[in-house]
């Protein structure tokens, strides 16, 4: 599902706020992903400082799955919030209709 285009009508401050938010979100995603995949894929017996082939394969798969899950849950959240927006609009319209 393609997202909407560039949101129009945002001034400097709001754009900066959005960029800051996005940096925050991406950094958090990166940190969580590395923590989870490291815990799952790299056992704590350190015989060698290089990543072995099995561990590299495991990390590739872990990152792919994590990003896939992230994207799907994002879409689900979008759908839910869209439904709630519709509900809020109809409620506000009903409130204004009956003063």
């Amino acid at each position, binding site marked *: 599902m*393609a*997202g909407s*285009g560039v*949101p129009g009508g*945002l001034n400097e401050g709001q754009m900066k706020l959005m960029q800051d938010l996005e940096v925050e979100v991406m950094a958090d995603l990166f940190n969580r992903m590395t923590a989870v995949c490291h815990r799952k894929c790299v056992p704590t017996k350190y015989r060698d400082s290089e990543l072995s082939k099995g561990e590299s394969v495991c990390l590739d798969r872990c990152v792919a799955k994590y990003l896939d899950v992230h994207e799907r849950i994002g879409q689900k959240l*979008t759908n839910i919030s869209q439904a709630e927006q519709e509900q809020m609009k109809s409620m506000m319209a009903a409130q204004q209709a009956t003063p």
Partner: protein
Amino acid sequence: MCEDIGRYLRSIGAEATMISDIREAPGQHHYTSTDARVFESVYGLSLEKMDDVCKYMMLNPRRYRENIQVPTILTPPYIKTREEKMVQAFFESCPFKAGISGIAGFGLGGALGLFTSSVNPSITGAELKSQTAREVLVEMRTAMLQYAKNFGMIGLMFAGVECCIESYRAKDDLRNGTYAGAVTGGLIGLRAGVKAGLLGGAGFAVFSAAIEYYMRS
């Protein structure tokens, strides 16, 4: 989605809470008009616009992404170039590893064949007195080639199978070598029948398990 953004904002110290309690079950959020006004006054964006922006940032695959932000520690993060990654992938790939093991086995088998042919020659008896240097060298060459081919094949198969098993399991422990030894021994012994194949597989598996255990302890 707005709730996630709200949680992030609150975690970095933003004061106003703009939505009702997050601990409510999903589907029970009721945004009143007061909530929406408070949100807009604090963040300067209506709820709808916030959702538009969130959608644009998270779900738009056509958006141009600059360099990925990676948290820095002491040194700046070194992200490998594409060529470096290709070279590294080639040197870690299964065919390359199997080939290198095959070549090493070939060399080792040649050395062993040379040694064996010198202490255990196949020319005996009456011909021993009249053998020429050329005959001795030819005999050494055939023995060397024979051993080299066998060892090379064993090395190639073992390393190839072990690499494939490790890629499939995505784990790094000594069972990879054991399974690879079982497969290699089975394939070699299969030339002499099924029973010999099973026995050879079991024996080779035990041998490679012992070697792996020794190398990992």
